[in-house]
């Protein structure tokens, strides 16, 4: 395969480079195991704000400015502006003096990052190994992809075209066996030049030699120092003695040189696509009742489910955004108890419940459906007999989901016993335990014998011989109510509970079981600290 662009290397450079360099091993393998394609976005700032620039009325000339130490400075501009004499690093006032009609846009780092990720995302079609090199580079390992795409040249042409179509980004590419070398080549290539391609590691040092040092993005002072020594290209650096170079410029730069020439390996962090689903639909005419809104969302849900099915993923949450004419956006968030795959009916059912209790401020013009992060689908053995479904608690998550969609999250909960003396602290609200591993290790011993564990820790003074489980009421009042005990008959007690000094809600109470005139049994207590001892409280019913 022909190299894409063969850079002519001055013959004088070669012998000097072949001078044995310490640390260089025997002849490197001619076919490297990896080939790294670097994507450099030379006009990242402009490209990231291209949409904003297009939206400007009259298409004025545009420059991107950023706040630096000494005021706003032009960081990037398009060719027309460049032709008028505006240069990067120029102050905004100077640029405006040169070009009075200039429109300035503030640099947006977030959009730049988004564009870079979009490029990486798109690149995943060409290779599974993609790595980000912020702020403006993406690396792909393409050794295995070359054959598929018909060679390096074809690959580069297709990649560049696809990236431009998908993201609007102009790119410069280079392929070499070392990631860093690829980046350097991609950064310094002249605009419009063909992509650099180095196949063998041995060639690397020679081909890198003519590159100016700017491409390495080393600290400015170092580059300046090297410049005063007459060292202006990568080749000049390679010719310097290693220990001297390390002393003058730091070990990091020497390591960078080693990585670029393929002497040292460079592990790259893989880019993981954070894929989400988003789709929108304009409603014509506008919809003002929630029932019809459910129907309008159905195609979007179908689309989401197709999206999930294709990828074999599922979602834990979805969001519906309703856009109105003037009123602010209405968001409806739906969280599922268990990750949901491609189940349009299930989602539609939950959404209907949720929309049913929604009050629309205005008719809806436009709906958007967004998915939360995608989760890998967990393959689960399906029960053969419907009979077993209830046992495995498989229906419960759906039930909880449906109830929560209408009643809210807090309205549905489970219970748990807590080993505590204070009655109000001896239980708490918990998330219902779903799924098969439902036997939660409970602080309570198994509820076989009534009373076991409930009173084991409390120093009951009475009722030890009796069925102690009966000494706790089935209904416990949230807040004890003052109560009149004059017509009550005391059956059990007192049971003294004195505890909780450590968290500021300490109690010292004498509990009694009392019976009322209608045969009702109450759990009443008197505060021990209450000097008079006249204040009685009702704390529960033995229902």
């Amino acid at each position, binding site marked *: 395969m022909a190299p894409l662009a063969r850079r002519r290397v001055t013959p004088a450079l070669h012998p000097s480079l072949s001078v044995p360099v310490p640390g260089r091993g025997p002849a490197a393998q001619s076919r490297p195991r990896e080939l790294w394609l670097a994507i450099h976005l030379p006009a990242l700032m402009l490209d990231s704000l291209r949409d904003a620039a297009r939206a400007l009325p009259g298409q004025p000339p545009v420059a991107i400015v950023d706040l630096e130490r000494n005021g706003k400075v032009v960081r990037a501009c398009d060719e027309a502006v460049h032709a008028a004499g505006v240069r990067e690093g120029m102050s905004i006032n100077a640029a405006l003096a040169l070009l009075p009609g200039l429109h300035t846009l503030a640099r947006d780092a977030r959009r730049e990052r988004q564009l870079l990720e979009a490029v990486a995302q798109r690149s995943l079609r060409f290779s599974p190994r993609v790595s980000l090199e912020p702020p403006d580079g993406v690396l792909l390992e393409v050794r295995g992809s070359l054959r598929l795409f018909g060679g390096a040249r074809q690959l580069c042409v297709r990649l560049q075209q696809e990236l431009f179509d998908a993201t609007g980004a102009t790119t410069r590419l280079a392929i070499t066996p070392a990631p860093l070398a690829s980046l350097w080549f991609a950064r310094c290539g002249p605009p419009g030049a063909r992509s650099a391609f180095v196949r063998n590691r041995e060639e690397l040092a020679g081909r890198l030699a003519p590159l100016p040092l700017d491409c390495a993005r080393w600290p400015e002072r170092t580059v300046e120092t090297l410049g005063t020594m007459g060292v202006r290209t990568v080749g000049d650096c390679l010719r310097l003695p290693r220990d001297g170079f390390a002393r003058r410029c730091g070990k990091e730069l020497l390591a960078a040189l080693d990585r670029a020439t393929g002497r040292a390996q460079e592990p790259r962090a893989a880019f993981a696509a954070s894929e989400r689903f988003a789709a929108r639909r304009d409603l014509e005419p506008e919809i003002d009742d929630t029932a019809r809104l459910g129907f309008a969302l159905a195609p979007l849900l179908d689309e989401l489910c197709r999206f999930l099915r294709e990828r074999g993923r599922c979602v834990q949450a979805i969001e519906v955004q309703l856009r109105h004419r003037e009123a602010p956006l209405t968001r409806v968030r739906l969280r599922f108890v268990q990750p949901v795959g491609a189940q349009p009916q299930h989602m539609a059912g939950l959404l209907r419940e949720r929309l049913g209790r929604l009050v629309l401020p205005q008719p809806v013009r436009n709906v958007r459906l967004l998915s939360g992060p995608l989760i890998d689908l967990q393959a689960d053995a399906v029960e053969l007999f419907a009979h077993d479904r209830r046992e495995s608690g498989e229906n419960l998550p759906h039930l*909880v989901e449906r109830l929560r969609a*209408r009643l809210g999250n807090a309205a549905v909960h489970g219970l748990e016993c807590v080993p505590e003396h204070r009655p109000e602290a001896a239980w708490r609200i918990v998330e*219902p335990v779903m799924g098969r591993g439902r036997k939660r290790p409970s602080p309570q011993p198994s*509820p076989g014998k009534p009373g076991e564990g409930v009173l084991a820790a409390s120093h009951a003074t009475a009722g030890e011989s009796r069925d102690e*489980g009966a000494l*706790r009421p*089935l209904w416990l009042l949230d807040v004890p109510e003052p109560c009149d005990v004059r017509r009550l008959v005391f059956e059990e007690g007192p049971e003294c509970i004195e505890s909780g000094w450590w968290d500021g809600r300490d109690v010292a109470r004498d509990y009694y079981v009392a019976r009322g005139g*209608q045969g009702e049994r109450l759990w009443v207590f008197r505060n021990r600290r209450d000097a008079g001892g006249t204040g009685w409280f009702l704390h529960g019913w033995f229902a």
Partner: protein
Amino acid sequence: MSASVEELLQQNSTRLWRAREPGGAQAARAPTGLPTGHVALDRCLPGAGWPRQGLIEILSDQRGIGELRLLLPALAALCRDEGAAAVYPPPRSSDARCQAGSALLPQDRGSGGWVAWVSPPYCPYAPALAAWGIDVTRVLVVQGAGTTEWAMDQALRSEACSAVLGWANPRDPQALRRLQLAAESSRSLAVLYRPLQAGLTPSPAVLRLALLGGSEGLQVRIVKSRGGRPATVNLGH
């Protein structure tokens, strides 16, 4: 010909409701109900226990007279049944004084699903429930005031719960009817707690019990019992 009709009657004895037959006799032949754990009450109920299908209404105005204790032995049996693999066929005891839980039918096997408490007047107290033998980890509390019937309906249809208890007073006969239909088609025990006053209006429920507390203990009046007869039982304290 008449003999074959007799045979058919014998075969379908559990599905047929024969008004003449006293509940006890039928119960002895085929204990279709879920034992209540109260022997005196079992005797008066057709099927010798809580009906497994259909809505049960418990009418009570007073708190603390034992309105929950009435139900807890059966709930505990449902929980217990889940833990210990139920023996099938269940030991048939001709003695009507069978303990709650010993006569669970095969469809109850592994049915120790959840117990849903929909809109209870107070939060059920977990330690007391545990002491009564109820698996607290399988209790689902739903606070849905105003939508109790809907939530109960959902819980019944989901088949996730072995029992669904609700506190509401549906004024709409349609809502009651829907609830009864859901309870009829579900395998869950469906119990609706209503005020005593509701006993004056008709209801499609299978069983309606009115509870009255008193110095002698809990008095259970069977207001309506499909296949059974009105009766009054005193369960003591």
